[in-house]
């Protein structure tokens, strides 16, 4: 057994991580107070300045997003710190004007999606500019041991905690005691209130984002001196910080401090306890992500509806949806075209086309859950992964034959999807996004990345056989067999057929009614909870099919295929393609990572992380300017062309039965900015 002193020492060590949580959660709180936006990119934004700091310390290079400056010699810590915080400040201003201001009155969906786009883009930019590897960071706070109640503990973590709590206290003073701060709080209740106090809500928002970025930058710089810098970890550290934000009910800085430090200490102690003999091996991995997830769940179930939501002028609407119909000619052309494409190509190109079909399914699962049902789920890839890992177990260990194994695995995905739907009974919008992201991360680290469940060399998957015919992707030197592409095409076509049948029926209409107005839906007789369960189930089923196909296409499964980041990138392309239609999912499949466009571009030039950067930026642009995506714009252009051809006035073709007023019945109009 350990002595009490060990516990105390680990508690103090945990304060270091806790200080980072305090800094990020304070930033999140400030942004939320001033704009109503939950900024998923908070960690990534803080990370940029931290990288600038680290690079200055390493070799005196001042790195900008484009270009760099070579200083004659590495500047001192204080100067480097100043430059890094200045960079954070500039990033905050840029983010305000280019990203957050345009969506301040947009639906929550657009706000969440935009901040995720920013997060993906900054993470990619960091990898491009600073490289993907861990950078060791010099100590900012010197390492000294202090005697605390007679125990020698690390002074560095104590100092960090004091520093971050101090910064948080400054923010509290700003919000509580300055006129601008009161105006910011007033704006959170009512934007006119701030205007009446003589402040532009817009400027206040800009200042808040700037300040929050500086504080988060400081937090990441301090944290990185303990852990080193790694692009993925500090982007995703926003998830525990979001848990702290929820714990603080989105408004109490005191609770942010207590909660952040407590979470850090708790994780540190868990790390200690999990080294003991009685702790099961399978439960050692991913604890640091499971704890925040559990906290989020507990808070949401305990407080759920009482969490304040910011009152703002929600005058804008979600992108429109047209109920789909099955038309024979387009279906034949599409399936025929895909069949022709895979049979005329080979090797990498054929593999790219096949991957596009699989990615189309993943995008379609986002269309169901977000486009139709209006729920933000960031766990779609976790559903896919759950099905894939189940497949590798049951196809190999139990020897279940192909179609049965896939169906059974997808049923596992359905069950997981319905489990994630449970929080959606009580919460929606950004809070649901937080929950699903925390869930996805917990599943990724605790299950997929757990070596006692998933061997590091990957899970082999038995080849799909039907009646003695082998549909495996590889055979000998052929890395993309036609048989496999045909298999994928058939599965994808069936899944799309299923989607269209449901979406065009009573189920799809019920989805759209719930998306539009839950209260009115219930008063019209819709069982809102059941409808959400069906929606999550359907989207998880489609994602599960995709997960199984991903498994077959690699011949084995590893955690990397289902990382949260890959999921966010697919969300990005789904949004760019068009989140509200099958056509959008189709476009998304074509432009998705590993899809055909990616493969072709990759052969032309080395893209590396530029692809992720482009998807992140594309996501932001789409969410801000064209919420119905490429497919929606094309649809609109075709409709406009048809009207022109008929020679009638605008809308005459579709609206002969329209009532007198509001005589612009163009349904495709996704106009979204106010």
């Amino acid at each position, binding site marked *: 057994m350990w002595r009490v002193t060990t516990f105390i020492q680990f508690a103090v060590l945990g304060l270091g991580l806790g200080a980072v949580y305090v800094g990020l959660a304070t930033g999140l709180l400030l942004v939320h107070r001033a704009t109503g936006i939950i900024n998923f990119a908070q960690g990534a934004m803080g990370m940029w300045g931290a990288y600038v700091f680290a690079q200055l310390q390493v070799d005196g290079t001042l790195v900008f997003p484009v270009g760099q400056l070579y200083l004659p010699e590495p500047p001192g810590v204080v100067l480097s710190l100043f430059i890094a915080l200045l960079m954070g400040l500039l990033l905050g201003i840029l983010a305000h004007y280019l990203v957050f201001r345009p969506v301040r009155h947009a639906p929550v969906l657009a706000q969440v999606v935009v901040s995720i786009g920013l997060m993906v883009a900054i993470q990619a930019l960091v990898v491009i500019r600073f490289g993907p590897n861990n950078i060791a960071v010099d100590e900012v706070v010197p390492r000294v041991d202090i005697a605390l109640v007679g125990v020698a503990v690390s002074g560095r973590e104590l100092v960090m905690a004091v520093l971050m709590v101090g910064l948080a206290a400054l923010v509290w003073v700003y919000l509580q005691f300055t006129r601008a701060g009161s105006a910011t709080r007033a704006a959170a209740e009512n934007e006119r209130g701030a205007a009446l106090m003589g402040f532009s809500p817009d400027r206040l928002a800009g200042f808040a984002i700037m300040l929050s970025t500086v504080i988060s930058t400081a937090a990441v710089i301090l944290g990185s001196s303990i852990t080193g810098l790694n692009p993925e970890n500090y982007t995703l550290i926003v998830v525990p910080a979001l848990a702290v934000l929820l714990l603080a009910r989105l408004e109490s800085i005191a609770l942010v401090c207590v909660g952040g430090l407590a979470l850090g200490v708790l994780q540190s102690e868990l790390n200690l306890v999990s080294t003991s003999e009685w702790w099961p091996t399978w439960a050692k991995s991913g604890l640091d992500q499971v704890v925040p997830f559990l906290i989020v769940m507990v808070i949401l179930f305990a407080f759920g509806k009482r969490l304040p939501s910011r009152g703002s002028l929600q005058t804008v*609407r*979600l992108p*429109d*949806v047209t*109920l789909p119909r099955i038309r024979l000619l387009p279906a034949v052309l599409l399936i025929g075209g895909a069949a022709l494409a895979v049979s005329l190509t080979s090797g990498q190109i054929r593999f790219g086309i096949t991957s596009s079909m699989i990615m189309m399914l993943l995008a379609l699962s986002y269309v169901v859950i977000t486009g139709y049902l209006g729920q933000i789920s960031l766990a779609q890839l976790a559903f896919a992964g759950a099905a894939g890992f189940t497949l590798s177990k049951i196809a190999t260990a139990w020897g279940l034959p192909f179609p049965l194994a896939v169906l059974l695995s997808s049923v596992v995905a359905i069950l997981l999807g319905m489990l994630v739907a449970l929080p959606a009974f009580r919460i929606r919008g950004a809070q649901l996004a937080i929950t699903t992201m925390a869930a996805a991360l917990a599943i990724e680290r605790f299950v997929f990345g757990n070596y006692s469940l998933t061997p590091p060399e990957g899970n082999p998957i038995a080849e799909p056989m039907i009646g003695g015919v082998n549909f495996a992707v590889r055979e000998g030197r052929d890395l993309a067999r036609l048989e496999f592409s045909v298999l994928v095409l058939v599965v994808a076509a069936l899944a799309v057929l*299923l989607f269209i*049948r*449901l979406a*065009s*029926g*009573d*189920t*799809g*209409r*019920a*989805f*759209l*009614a719930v998306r*539009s*107005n839950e*209260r*009115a*839906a*219930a*008063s*019209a*007789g*819709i*069982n*809102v909870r*059941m*409808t959400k369960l*069906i929606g999550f189930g359907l989207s998880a089923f489609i994602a599960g099919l995709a997960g199984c196909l991903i498994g077959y296409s690699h011949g084995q499964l590893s955690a990397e295929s289902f990382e949260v980041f890959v999921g966010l990138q697919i969300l990005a392309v789904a949004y760019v393609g068009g989140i509200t239609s099958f056509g959008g999912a189709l476009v998304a499949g074509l432009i998705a990572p590993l899809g055909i466009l990616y493969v072709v571009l990759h052969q032309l030039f080395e893209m590396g992380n530029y692809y992720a950067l482009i998807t992140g930026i594309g996501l932001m642009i789409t969410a801000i300017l064209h919420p119905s995506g490429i497919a929606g714009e094309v649809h609109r252009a075709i409709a406009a062309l048809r009207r022109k051809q008929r020679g009638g006035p605008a809308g005459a073709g*579709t*609206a002969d*039965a*329209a*009532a007198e*007023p*509001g*005589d*612009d*019945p163009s*349904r495709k109009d996704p106009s979204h900015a106010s």
Partner: protein
Amino acid sequence: MPVEAEAGLHASDITVSYGGVLANDRVTLDVTPGQVVGLIGPNGAGKTTFVDAVTGFTAAEGQVWLAGTRLDELAPHHRRAAGLSRTWQSGELFSNLTVAENIMVAARPGGLRRVWHDIFGRRDRASDLVANVLRTVGLADAEETIARDLTLGQQKLVGVARAMAGRCGLLLLDEPAAGLDSAESAAFAERLRAIAADGPGVLLIDHDMSLVLGVCDRVYVMEFGKVIFAGTPAQARRDPAVVAAYLGVPMEASHD
């Protein structure tokens, strides 16, 4: 025979408290089939709260019976399925669906059992049903219009049509005529009578006194969360408490 077993709506002792304030204080109200019953009272009297309580959208004490079935412990959509329909003051249509689709939502609200039929069953558009309810509210030619392109008055009429679709034993209409001009309002009164004559009872909340007193068989008047009067419109016009609480001026001034 106890009242609970009778046809129509019987709401008894409905009590709603918001943070210690009694928004509804033991409100008891009956609507028999075929009748149009009015519920009037000054702003903040608790009329909409009563509708929310009866339809399950706010937590309330008291009992709600419809056609002999007790509903007060059911979820809103179950009450709707039992025939208790409501409209909303602000319309609350599904704004990016067409009028026809809005009505279809209520006529066939999906659910787990419907999934199988959606995938494998035959499609029918139930266009007769949609056309019928739309004709009832006088919007026969608006089927394919997107709901948000309608005027507020028209949106409320679609809300009434939506409430009538599917099984409907009782209509609770929350200010359905606000936003209509006086001619439209008069036409709406005619339709209300026709609807009630067809079977379902109607509870009408409105500020338009000539509409309420002109069309209703019985009237309830609320003030500060309590029912202060129940009787015929003619009695209401003469009742001093009603005149003092709500009308302020003798009825003759506002009625014709």
